[in-house]
């Protein structure tokens, strides 16, 4: 009996000490997307560096499904102790307006927003236009003739097209694909003419001359594609939405103690600054963000309000952003 009481006390002491000594055991990292995808690659390359700082193992598991909602719900069903991390992409920020789930990143604590992708508008080599303005003129002269690839409603391509449509009315034929990769393959095979993709996915093909870059969907040009003009040159009105792009981040459940969040943020920040990670992000055409705390929250809020209102105005939101008090950008 004495032994049990003693060990119970020891347990109590240990659990209160755990707060200060976090982490005392392995951390579970739940990746929203499948093995080998971009989210998976980013998380698997940053985690070894964070492990070194934390002095413990981060066990990575892919829990795919439901556009990332299954992993998001899974992490939120666990304890808010910092031992279960959600390693995700931008998708949850659209769940509410698209009616996919009632939870998004504003209901969680961001540990670190690691990196952001920059959208690039590419066209197949035979397309009779080379710049944004020429493309707009061509589409206006030939309504319906240009086929634009997409990755489904709410995907990056649909948001970029919605941004452009908010400035000029263009009649294009949209053909959906399961992601950037298959769409860019179809572009090279001539099945589609134009595709808004992530810079990193397209840049190697552009450099090899297998497709051409029309515009960079950002405020400024990028050293990776120095000759491509930013889209605001042709459509200055878009600057209210930018910078915009898919991102990768690490999150914990709401209610996780502050010192635990701080420790995790620091660890992932070191990981994001590591040379390996910087090189990887540069080669894939992502910009390292390394945001935590309020800066991360601000970025996430802006992303949510831009995409929610764009899909709402484009007419394919299930719920109005107003229902969730999402302000207009």
């Amino acid at each position: 009996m004495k032994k049990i009481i003693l060990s119970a006390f020891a347990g109590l002491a240990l659990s209160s000490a755990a707060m200060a000594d976090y982490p005392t055991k392995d951390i579970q990292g739940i990746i929203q997307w499948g093995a080998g995808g971009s989210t998976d690659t980013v998380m698997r390359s940053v985690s070894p560096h964070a492990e070194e700082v934390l002095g413990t193992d981060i066990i990575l598991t892919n829990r795919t499904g439901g556009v990332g909602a299954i992993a998001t719900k899974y992490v939120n069903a666990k304890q808010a102790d910092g031992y279960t991390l959600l390693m995700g992409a931008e998708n949850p920020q659209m769940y509410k307006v698209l009616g996919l789930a009632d939870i998004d990143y504003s209901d969680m604590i961001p540990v670190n927003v690691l990196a952001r992708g920059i959208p690039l508008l590419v066209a197949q080599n035979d397309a009779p236009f080379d710049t944004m303005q020429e493309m707009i003129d061509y589409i206006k002269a030939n309504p319906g003739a240009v086929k634009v690839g997409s990755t489904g409603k709410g995907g990056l391509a649909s948001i970029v097209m919605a941004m452009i449509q908010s400035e000029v009315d263009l009649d294009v034929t949209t053909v959906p694909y399961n992601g950037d990769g298959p769409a860019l393959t179809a572009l090279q095979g001539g099945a589609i003419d134009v595709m808004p993709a992530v810079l990193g996915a397209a840049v190697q093909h552009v450099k090899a001359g297998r497709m051409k870059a029309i515009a960079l969907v950002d405020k400024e040009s990028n050293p990776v594609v120095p000759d491509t003009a930013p889209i605001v040159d042709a459509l200055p009105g878009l600057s209210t939405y930018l910078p915009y792009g898919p991102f990768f981040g690490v999150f914990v459940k709401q209610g996780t103690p502050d010192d635990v969040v701080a420790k995790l943020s620091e660890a992932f920040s070191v990981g994001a600054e590591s040379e390996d990670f910087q090189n990887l992000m540069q080669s894939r055409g992502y910009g390292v963000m390394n945001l935590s705390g309020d800066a991360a929250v601000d970025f996430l809020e802006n992303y949510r309000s831009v995409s929610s209102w764009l899909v709402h105005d484009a007419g394919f939101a299930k719920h109005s952003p107003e229902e969730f008090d999402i302000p207009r950008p």
Partner: protein
Amino acid sequence: MDSLSYFALSWMSPELLALTALGTFLGIYVGAIPGLSVTMAVSILISFTFSWDVNHALCLMVGIFMGGVYGGSRTAILLNIPGAPSAIATALDGYPLAKQGLAGEAIGLSTVMSVIGGFVGILVLALAAPTISEFAITFQPRDYLMLAILGITLVGSLSTGSLAKGMFAGALGVLVGTVGLDPLTAEERFTFGVIELWDGINVIAAMIGLFGVSEALHQLHHLDKTIIKQKINRIIPPWADVRRYLPLSIQSSFIGVIIGALPGTGGDIAALMAYDQAKRSTKNPKVPFGKGAKEGLIAPEAANNAAVGGAYIPMLTLGIPGDAVTAVFIGALFIHGLNPGPLLLVEQPHMFWFTVGNLTLANIFVLIFGLTGIRIFSKIVECPKAVMIPLILLLSIVGAYAINNSVVDVWWMLAFGVLGYFMRLYNYPVGPVILGLILSKLMDENWRRAILSERGDMGSFFANLFTSPLSCVLLAAILFAFFSQTPIWQRWLKPKLLSR
């Protein structure tokens, strides 16, 4: 001369040689366990080999890939549980062979044919990669649709007995394949608001249930049956056999390479199509297909290993993955600081011949490891039923859980097991269900993509169909597949044409 030295890189270095051997060995066992996929193994290795030299990491991964694709046939032959979807067709004739006491011979033959298929794939990769990859990316959505329709005609080959029952099973598979978020619009279909159904019903879970669990349940009827002694004196197939089946295995390998090189299809469809082709072209099999025809074992095994070389074709030349595993390889190359893409061969000229050499090496190890230990393996079939049946169930549960670390898949697997049991009881073939499940997505997506590209205009859909040579050839193949089953062809035209 440079290319030769790159080719031999992994042959000369003892470390690389050992890693390739280790990878192949592990791959055979990973591939043999249903639910553990090569894709999964390779992506876990990415974080494991993070700090290694890139060549070392690649040797291990290439070995796993080559060994894994082959390994799927082991459990298919011995237990009727395909280790991966690409081994489904192998189970159709491989398992009957094991039941006849010929497991050892079946494994030996499948090993040799896998290796021949692997070599054909590598040879095509080495000689014709740029041409084939340019051809592969010209496949339009309507061409993928045609390919899927051609695939669905396989129901005929997979139905032993009643064609009507086969078509029913195939349609059931197509229906099950439509469950989940609509791939193009993310609209929910048959999900009943259950989030776990968003991603649809997992093909591998259904496969383990329909093949493995239903077989285990079926075995309960035959508990008193005496166990068949396995003949293990003939393991390595005699040269005469290899030579006789060589034309078939080469023909199947070419199907495998092309289907493998297409970015939208992989080894599973390749193996099924090769099986179908073998069934059509083999005039007088010694044993009927589905009852243990060696032709039915050879064709899919040669095709799925040839698809490995095929999958590398667009990946190495254009940076476009040929299947799920090569997609993970692309991620691995990124992590190691290389830029896999159309410039890979310019920036890293050694990569192509290094990979070709490494694949060749891994293929040789498949032969070595594949032909050793068969005696012990074929003893598995001699296990008493009371040990065997619980073992199959356990393996099935572990395998189903391993797919996504999710209990939901285990329930689906068990449900499909019970369904498969009743289907067997009433002589419904289970193969077409999986076929429908695999092809459902391909058909669904590409039909809609094709018609969306034409803005819903059927007229221009058919106009483009007849103006594209590729689409015309595929259409002709579909028409022939149907026509060749009509009495006009069977009784009148075929004897006339063939007697000449």
